[in-house]
């Protein structure tokens, strides 16, 4: 197109943009005084916690704010033209052809009733009016570009026949169909597993280079932004607080919020005892309760009354850096290199006797083809295969793996929601693997409790917080009267550092972190000795994650609890666990202390997993290992080693050993076990995945 080549200014210019939503009660400002530029071929990362307005900016660019949303100030210029002055027809023409957007949930972006090929071909047919045949050809080309295997089959498939990772690739392909100048990605990998996420990120980066597309990348994950973007803009409570190039912002941050954010995420080197994470105090302000002056003021360590809360603060340029600006009045006075005032160092808990012993545990599910009439065609899903491990008192054992690896099934067997097919689970000296929860005595039930993943789901929305904890106390037969239980409930609220008034609140009045604390209080109601924490912080914002993690650690220290920490986030696992167990397709592929697992020799899967985790530190060098394909289905697992279909070391093993035999559990060092066929000398040659560059 002629006009494309003629224009060489910024692709997107956002100038002093303010967006508000209007409700019956009031105007809610969602974005205030936001400015940003995206140059051709540049990728801008937009980072912030949930509710900070980053998605609203994206919707503003798309001019799709709904009935209640209005742009109340500023301009958005796309290739020099003001978007708000365009007619609906012009906008429709630009959307999808020049600006494309990729959303978080791939399934929601695809039409389930249309074949992939037809959906892809629709884009150029509508926008460029080319013939169906030509469009199909181009669709095939793009599907190849996004590195999907067997493009012809994919084009004829319906969306539900593809895996989540493949669906997201198709969404990306659709966005690229008409070669847009600007691609908006709104948390494109949040719903995906880490190794799939790594592959998608790699793909987006490559395609950006290949097509020269500018990108607006919205994420809450600083590590991901570091890997994908050239420039970054940090948002807090509707305002951009700091923007600049990745290096400037990551290494020479000039805003207290950016600094606090980096201090609250577990980077390599953080340690739960020696240098614990520093949570940001206080809560995110509600849009209509923002303070005067600096929005971050009430939570800021450098707050100066009378100055920071005097009036609106505008962005100030940081001298010496390229387009680096910060919304802080005091950035020139603050000593940015001063080490954080450490919270008092914690004593490491003494690891006691074995509490839980799992030996050779197997859990198979039988899936009949037709549930009503049975039928002969029964399939077996091997959710857990020969799992053996021990957990000791006041120890944190992390269970790591992607979705479908069997970690949730393991949790269910431990809890008694399912019974084991084979093997043993010993709690103290009592074997519990085949006792369902109804048949367990109160003591056993209250000993093993669980903390759940989703804070918005973990509490019953129609019961008060206090009532829910009291119910747990009733079930665990604690306290003889209602009054005694109430006292105990208030003590539990103290334990998780929530104000006692919360007892009479409804869950919807609590924030995500507070709900998760109530969930923890409920789990500890019966004096739990083993707590299975199923991704307890993964749905929380980073600043809250640190606080909840620390709370768990503190309770563990005081109560000598054994914590089974299920997670896919290796940064946090490295930070808080004593031992790590890596699972893949129902197998334990590696088990050892945290140091052993995070340094070579690795199991090939651990190696890939480690390299896939984005780390928000510019001084870290990482090996890039991208796993091909998806996790095989547990219904139809590969023969031999479960990981052989995606393993990059397979060629190092002589013969077809990997395809025929399940590798034995090998002892590498004291307490370090790896399930792999690789010879010792090859394992010994492995390089560490994560290197911290010497400064």
């Amino acid at each position, binding site marked *: 197109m002629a006009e494309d080549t003629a224009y060489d200014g910024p692709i997107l210019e956002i100038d002093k943009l303010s967006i*508000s939503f*209007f*409700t*019956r009660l009031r*105007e809610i400002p969602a974005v205030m005084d936001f400015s940003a530029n995206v140059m051709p071929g540049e990728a801008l990362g937009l980072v912030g916690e949930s509710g900070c307005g980053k998605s609203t900016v994206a919707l503003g660019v798309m001019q799709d704010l709904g009935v209640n949303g*209005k*742009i*109340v*100030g500023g301009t958005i210029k796309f290739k020099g033209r003001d978007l708000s002055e365009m007619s609906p027809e012009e906008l429709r023409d630009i959307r999808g052809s020049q600006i494309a957007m990729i959303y978080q949930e791939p399934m929601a972006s695809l039409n389930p009733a249309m074949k992939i090929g037809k959906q892809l071909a629709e884009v150029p047919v509508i926008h460029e009016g080319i013939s169906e045949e030509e469009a199909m050809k181009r669709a095939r080309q793009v599907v190849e570009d996004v590195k999907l295997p067997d493009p012809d089959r994919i084009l004829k498939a319906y969306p539900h026949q593809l895996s989540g990772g493949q669906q997201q690739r198709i969404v990306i392909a659709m966005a690229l169909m008409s070669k847009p100048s600007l691609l908006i990605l709104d948390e494109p990998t949040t719903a995906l597993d880490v190794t799939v996420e790594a592959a998608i990120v790699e793909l987006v980066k490559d395609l950006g280079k290949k097509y020269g597309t500018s990108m607006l990348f919205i994420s809450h994950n600083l590590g991901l932004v570091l890997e994908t973007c050239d420039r970054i803009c940090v948002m807090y409570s509707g305002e951009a607080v700091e923007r600049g190039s990745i290096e400037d912002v990551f290494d020479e941050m000039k805003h207290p919020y950016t600094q606090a954010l980096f201090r609250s995420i577990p980077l390599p080197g953080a340690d739960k005892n020696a240098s614990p994470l520093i949570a940001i105090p206080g809560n995110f302000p509600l849009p209509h309760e923002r303070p005067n002056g600096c929005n971050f003021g009430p939570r800021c360590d450098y707050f100066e009354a009378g100055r920071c809360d005097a009036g609106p603060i505008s962005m100030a340029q940081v001298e010496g850096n390229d387009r680096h600006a910060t919304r802080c009045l005091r950035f020139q006075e603050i000593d940015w290199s001063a080490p954080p005032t450490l919270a008092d160092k914690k004593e490491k808990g003494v690891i006691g006797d074995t509490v839980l012993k799992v030996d050779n545990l197997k859990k198979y599910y039988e899936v009949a083809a037709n*549930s*009503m009439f049975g039928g002969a065609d029964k399939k077996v899903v091997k959710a857990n295969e020969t799992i053996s491990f021990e957990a000791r008192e006041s120890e944190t054992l992390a269970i790591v793996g992607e979705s479908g690896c069997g970690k949730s099934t393991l949790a269910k067997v431990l*809890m*008694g*929601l399912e019974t084991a097919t084979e093997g043993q689970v010993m709690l103290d000296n009592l074997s519990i693997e085949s006792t369902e*929860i*109804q048949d*367990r005595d*109160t003591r056993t*039930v*209250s000993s093993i*409790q*669980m903390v*759940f*993943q*989703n804070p918005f*789901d*973990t*509490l*019953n*929305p*129609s*019961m008060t917080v206090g009532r829910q904890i009291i119910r*747990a106390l*009733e*079930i*665990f*037969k604690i306290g003889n009267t209602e009054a005694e239980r109430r006292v105990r409930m208030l003590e539990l609220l103290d334990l998780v550092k929530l104000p006692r008034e919360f007892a009479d609140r409804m869950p919807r009045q609590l924030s995500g972190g507070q709900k998760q604390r109530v*969930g923890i209080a*409920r789990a500890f109601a*019966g004096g739990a000795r083993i707590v299975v924490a199923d991704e307890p912080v993964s749905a929380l914002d980073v600043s809250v994650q640190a606080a909840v993690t620390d709370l768990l650690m503190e309770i563990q220290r005081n109560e000598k609890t054994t914590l089974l920490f299920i997670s896919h986030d290796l940064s946090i696992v490295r930070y808080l666990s004593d031992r790590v167990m890596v699972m893949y397709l129902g197998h334990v592929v590696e088990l050892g202390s945290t140091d052993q697992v995070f340094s070579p020799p690795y199991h090939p899967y651990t190696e890939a997993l480690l390299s896939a985790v984005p780390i928000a530190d510019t001084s870290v060098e990482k090996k890039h290992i991208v796993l091909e394909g998806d996790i095989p289905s547990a219904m139809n697992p590969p023969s031999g080693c479960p990981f052989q279909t995606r393993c990059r070391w397979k060629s190092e093993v002589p013969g077809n050993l990997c395809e025929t035999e399940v590798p034995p559990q090998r002892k590498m060092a004291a307490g370090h076990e790896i399930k792999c066929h690789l010879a010792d000398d090859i394992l010994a040659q492995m390089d560490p995945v994560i290197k911290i560059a010497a400064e």
Partner: protein
Amino acid sequence: MDPITWTGSLGPFLNPLMLAAIAVFVLGFFAQLVLNFAGVQPGEVQINPDHTLSVARSPNDYALMAMKYAVLLFLACVAVFIVGGIVQPSLEQKGIIGAMGQRFLPVWIAMILIFALSVTFKRRLGLYGKLFDSPIGMVGFFLVMFWMLTAIFAGLVATHGAIDVVSQMRNEVPGSFMPDPDEGEYLVYLLGGDNLGRDVFSRMVFGAREVLKIAPAATLFAFMVGITLGLPAGYFGGKLDTVLTFIANLVLAFPVILLFYLLVTPEIVASGIPTYMAAVLFLFPIIFFVILFNSRFFTQPFTRNIYIFLTVLIGGWLYLGLAWNSDPLGIISMPGNILIVFVSVVFVNSPTVFRIVRGIVLDIKTRDYVAAGQTRGEGPWYIMLWEILPNARGPLIVDFCLRIGYTTILLGTLGFFGLGVSPESPDWGSTINEGRRLLTIYPHPALPPAIALMTMVLGLNLLADGLREESLRD
């Protein structure tokens, strides 16, 4: 004496106004339609630099505004008629509308009280309070409350008895004077007389009482049955679900009217089938409450025993009286024909409720708080009744409103076919049926109950709409 007019002394002034309002409304409607086809958009909301909003009105908006004010004018005229009816002394001056407005005085007073209180405290009343933010919900609530209050105050509102027959008043037009009224008797038949010489107005008012006695109670029973069966079907799934869903489909597939005909056939009544059905269906509420309290309080046996004892005592007493007509105290009883109506309505409605509940349970049982209940060793019934059911209340309340409407229509249909209720009964369905025969000559006996039925169901539907809309917000 000539019958009194519809509008009385105010008519000459207000009638032209109302006609004008209707004309403006119709004109506005067509103008708006034409403008829409012509592509004129409604005005956009503009934002001023000082963060205030202003609307640039287009002709389209003016048409809509005209329609709105026409409706308001019309309603204002009606209000003036009613007030005129209350303050003016003689029936001739009041007119029929005014006189009816005056008879409904207790209803108006109660209505104003309810609205005033509700609007004042709407922020503290949860979902009910939010209803007063939605105009549609308010209109629905008004219509429903109007008939509810009419049913409650029927004795005060009605001018005559429901089955008082005055033979000279047969098929007399609305506003006709009684031939020789007794002392204190109301002088006119406001909406005329039916073919037996009974007062149509009074029968409509008493009909509200008949309908509202059965419809909500029957719907409530249907909900009890549907919930008690739908919860385990959704929660446990598997064979139980398959069997229960199959039975529900079977009932739904059976023609409703045929079922009613079968149920009221004397042979079948004599065989006792309706009684046995009632015996089974009426057992569900007792089972429901016993499980409800047991699952909640089993950790405190004393409290549990009190609750269950009370439930069984009161429930059992009602049960004996209603289902078996053998109340040992002789207070509670239900006439046989009403029982049949009740049973059939419950029987027909519960499968639909069952399916709704089952669907919601399938969704909610995947939540983490359900898993949390399971992992602390809660029984399945506690989880179903105390963790899942309260969170399913939104859709259930909406469906409850809609279903009372269906039940009301169903009762009307039953009455229309002369099934179930006694022939004397003033319920709306039977009245419409009676009026039907002479409809071409005398439309006035059939129309009032039909309009009553329509407004009541309309009100319930609007109420459900309003509730749904408001429960989805914020």
